[in-house]
């Protein structure tokens, strides 16, 4: 574990450094408060600190006060080193945000014991943060596939559409549906159905870049969002994604199974600024067309073509479940 020592006096600093290194810490030693603050504000910087009270640039309590104003970073456990602990000083130090104080010259055993207290507090914080992150993950991800759930993928899509409009770029929205998924469930059982969905989720994720995103939109429907996607490349990329599903069989507990997906694809730049619901409706229509065209293919949502058609000619948003 990393630990920061801030002391302007070389002999004491060296003594502390060596004592803590021997106790198994990864020691960072600095000689004034300003350097201490810099270290403590670094991402992945030390979270345990021993700060001398009186130092040039910034004194120990000032470092504590400054560190406590950070909000983004994890908790830092800070111990002030004082030479003589008058009651007033102690109160002032703890009020500044220090967690503990030690009187110099230190006793090695007491020092180690007090740092272990700090480590316990930090461990507790880590556990709480982890629990919170787990809850957050569960609230935004699909339990079966671990993909983003519908709510989360919609939120991200809205944000992405705003951004691409602002930057005059294009976002590609792909709505995909597994062909004849019902048959898998009916003939091979739900367990295999679930295995297939997990495998598809993995293949979709692997076929996009790290800044694109994939969500489970409904039962066997998946939404893929390609951010900042050049319109001329979009059909090709969508094809690659489609082939990632159909190109090789999936291994299931009841043997290999070849499945395909149909996709509706929409390029946001061709549609101006429209509500996300409208765009999803359009891409849903394109998906329906792909299904109607024999499945295992993709269809682009075409704004121009739509204008030429009368509303009556538009296919209804028929739900496909086969």
């Amino acid at each position, binding site marked *: 574990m990393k630990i920061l020592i801030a002391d302007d006096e070389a002999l004491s600093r*060296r003594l502390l450094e060596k004592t803590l290194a021997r106790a198994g810490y990864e020691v960072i030693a600095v000689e004034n408060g300003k350097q201490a603050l810099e270290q403590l504000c670094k991402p992945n910087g030390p979270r345990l600190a021993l700060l001398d009270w009186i130092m040039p640039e910034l004194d120990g309590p000032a470092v504590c006060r400054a560190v406590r104003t950070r909000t983004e970073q994890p908790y830092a456990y800070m111990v002030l080193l004082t*030479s003589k602990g008058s009651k007033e000083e102690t109160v002032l130090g703890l009020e500044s945000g220090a967690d503990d104080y030690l009187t110099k010259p230190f006793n090695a055993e007491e020092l180690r014991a007090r740092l272990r207290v700090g480590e316990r507090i930090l461990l507790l914080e880590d556990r709480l943060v982890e629990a919170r992150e787990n809850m957050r993950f569960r609230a935004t991800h699909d339990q079966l596939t671990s993909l983003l759930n519908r709510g989360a993928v919609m939120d991200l899509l809205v944000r992405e559409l705003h951004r691409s409009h602002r930057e005059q770029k294009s976002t590609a929205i792909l709505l995909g549906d597994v062909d004849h998924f019902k048959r898998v469930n009916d003939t091979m059982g739900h367990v295999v159905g679930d295995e297939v969905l997990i495998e598809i989720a993995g293949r979709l994720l692997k076929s996009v870049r790290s800044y694109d995103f994939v969500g489970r939109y409904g039962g066997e429907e998946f939404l893929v969002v390609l951010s900042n996607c050049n319109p001329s490349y979009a059909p090709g990329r969508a094809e690659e994604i489609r082939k990632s599903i159909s190109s090789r069989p999936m291994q299931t507990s009841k043997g290999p199974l070849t499945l395909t997906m149909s996709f509706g694809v929409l390029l946001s730049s061709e549609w101006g600024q429209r509500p996300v619901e409208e765009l999803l409706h359009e891409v849903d229509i394109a998906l329906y067309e792909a299904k109607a065209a024999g499945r295992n293919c993709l269809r682009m949502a075409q704004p121009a073509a739509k204008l030429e058609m009368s509303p009556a000619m538009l296919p209804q948003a028929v739900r496909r479940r086969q």
Partner: protein
Amino acid sequence: MNKREEGLSEPVWNLPELLERVDNDQVLLRELLDIFKEDFPQTLRSLQTAVTAEDLKSSSRLSHTLKGMLSSLGAVRAAAAASKLEALSAAGETASLRAALSALESEGECLVPELDAYMTEVRR
């Protein structure tokens, strides 16, 4: 041994305490003594200048530094003398500074030979 009582209860240099603090690491102990031999005279000189100039702020800061250095080393009596000088500087007792400084200087004069003697002893 290294204790020179000189009528005071505290030793000039509390070597056992220091050895415990360095976990009997002779290499570290020697390193600390080297730092001391370099930093102590230098800081003391700056302190003498500050006291002569009646610069209370500097004498307070420098005597604080010496106090930390000396107490880490287990030089209990010299640390106490530095502490006294620090307190007088902080309280603005300009008139008492010189006397307190000489007390610190004479403690330093007792201390340094003890350290040197130890260094010679362990090198043999």
